[in-house]
């Protein structure tokens, strides 16, 4: 599964990404997880199975849903899980989004 995260500059989401990778590894899952700047979402379409947004850009959700245009599910990361860098929780959120697609 390919999980992409997006935030304002890709800096704070990359903290969450490293925790998610650790969580995926400890669960024995071979996922590709990475973070980009929100402006790069359009050029990444097709590369990700699910797009998660940092809560600080949640006001952009509508626009990014338009951009992705059904190619993958899009959701805002639970703020508390995001802030506390709870990799396992965010990973679970991503898996559920893909499963319920």
């Amino acid at each position, binding site marked *: 599964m390919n999980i992409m995260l997006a935030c304002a500059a890709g800096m704070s989401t990359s*903290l969450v990404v490293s925790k998610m990778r650790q969580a995926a590894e400890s669960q024995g899952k071979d996922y590709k997880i990475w973070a980009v700047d929100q402006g790069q979402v359009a050029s990444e379409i097709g590369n990700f199975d699910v797009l998660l947004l940092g809560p600080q*850009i949640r*006001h*952009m959700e509508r*626009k990014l849903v338009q951009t992705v245009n059904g190619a993958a599910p899009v959701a805002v990361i639970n*703020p*508390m899980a*995001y802030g506390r860098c709870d990799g396992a929780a965010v990973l679970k959120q991503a898996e559920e989004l893909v499963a319920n697609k």
Partner: protein
Amino acid sequence: MLDKFTDLMERILTPVADFMNGNKYVVAIQKAFSTYTPIVITGSFAFMLNLMLCSTKSGLAQFAGFEWLANYANIFSTVNYACISCMALWIAFLVAYSIGEQDGQKPLICGLISSVSFITVLDPENIAGSLDASALFLAFFVGIISMAIFNGLMRFERIKIKLPDSVPEMIANSFNALIPAFITIMVFGIFAGVLYATTGTFINSIIYTVIQIPFNQAIGTQIGVSIITVLSQLLWWMGIHGHMAMNAVAKPVRTAALAANIAAVASGALPPEFYTLAFVHLFMNLGGSGIVISLALSILAFSKRADYREVTKLSFVPLIFGISEPMVFGLPIMLNPTFFFPFVIAPLVTCNIGYYAITSGFLTSAYVESIAGAPMFLQQFLAFSGQWQALLMVVVVIAVAFAIYTPFVLVSNKQYEREQAEAAQLEA
């Protein structure tokens, strides 16, 4: 009561953030500047190196044995010219590139048409002197208007030149755009030519005096910067990236200010503008938007809440690099009434301290672009060209914000004790 307040803020502020980050043209201007950031940093560092090495007044070249360095000043001044004194040309390209991308056009031809149109409206006798930050607003307008014309024309299938299918797609595409490109550029040529013939002036000087100067003067003032700080913090308190949302308005102003400061220092004067990115990184976003590092220090010193201490420890290293999201969402500060007041007031106070530190002459304003994501102290040391005053101000800002946050950390202790007591009573 709190719900109502939050609701009200959401209703007022979310549309602001929505507009700033959702409007096609605002997004294009923002993207143009963020793409251009490495070039601004390159140009301003080249300028600083010139001062340090080749200047006979302040650089190594003033000392015996190093005079020859002065002959090589061109190494840096040409880089600075291409990066800083030509920035409006590149911004005109980038704005149209981004609009074209959003409109589903071929972005390269869009950027190209806009840059060509931009040169078209300038004074042909003084092109080299018309590409600097004073033409930034002109660059926005040319980018937006040229794309409005070009995109409009591209909708008419009849004016696209069709080539047989055997012609390679690359060539066919450039022929497709030929007539729309021709008309778009001619519109600017006619506009500039008629304006000159009837008034004897060029549009860049008109836009500069009528729009750009008033706009910069409204934003780049003590009041303007204070308002931006408050709005940015209110958005952050709701969990929205306030700095990013405000950038659409603030970034052109800061970039023009940096260019003005460079020009002033180059001519031997003091940098006149205080509101640069270096100012933001020292007085508004030091250790995370809202000087959150001071809240973190206060929690580590005084908080009795184990969960606060835990989150703060995890968030501390990112804060040194100016990343406050773990604290904002993890503590959380977001929608937390206890920290609403200091979160808004602390940076408001420190940005005003910064204003007085610079206008009083204690700290010389920056003429080097600050690097986002660099660790504190080093960030300020570089951006303020090694002034010790900047390092002292880092300490002052942290201390002042610490004093503002601490009473609220103590309040959160009291609240916590009360909650614990109530929970114990319920159990009993």
